[in-house]
């Protein structure tokens, strides 16, 4: 059975998710600028690892957003 949250609980959850997503997006921004700098400087070794880490960050963000939609569907 899916647990039902009150609106206050959902607001707290969404605030927590927002903080995690914000940190991950900032990490992605840093990763993109560092990779671009390395690529323009001719360093190709970081390109694939950085892309995979960025993909992982997005997957985590998408998962959190999916959870957000899931708790939206449950009525208190």
């Amino acid at each position: 059975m899916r647990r039902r949250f009150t609106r206050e609980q959902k607001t707290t959850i969404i605030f927590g998710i927002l903080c995690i997503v914000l940190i991950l997006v900032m990490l992605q921004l840093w990763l993109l600028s560092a990779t671009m700098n390395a690529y323009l400087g001719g360093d190709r070794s970081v390109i694939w690892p950085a892309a995979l880490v960025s993909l992982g960050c997005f997957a985590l963000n998408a998962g959190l957003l999916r959870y957000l939609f899931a708790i939206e569907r449950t009525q208190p």
Partner: protein
Amino acid sequence: MTMQTNREQITTAPDGRPDSEQPRWRQDFPIDWAQDHYVARRDFTRFLVLTSLAFMVGQFWIVFQNFFRARRGALPIQRIAGVDELPIGGDLTFSYPGEHDQCVLVRLGEQSYAAFSRQCTHLSCAVVAEPDRRRFYCPCHEGAFDIASGSPIAGPPRRPLARITLDFRQGAIYATDVELRML
């Protein structure tokens, strides 16, 4: 009944006074503050996830570009000038490897030459050779690079200029490759 239920969900206004003491406009159009905060955070989270997608796409765009750079193969060998055509302390602009890729060749000494891309590593403005001041100067943001090494010495650039690999054959100077560099 539904209207009554909705009214009960509306929380206290920001000034803390009861509903009966609120101005008429707020009584007519009450705002559910808790719901407002919830929706604002939810929508901001959605926007951030979209931003996250954009960053990931950007990251894979670099992978895509790198794939084509790796398949580009060797650059053509191009004659720039004769060895004696350039006086000591002189400079000569040329295009390499493409028609629009501006480069500059400088003669530093009797047997000493250096060639770099003219594209500033900050925002791609064209740098100007200033042999008397031993530097390449970028007029856009006051950037400067060392004339012998191409390393940044002033202003916003953080990466050295791309070096053009030179080869000397039968009294002429040839460009053979472009070397991208990090500090």
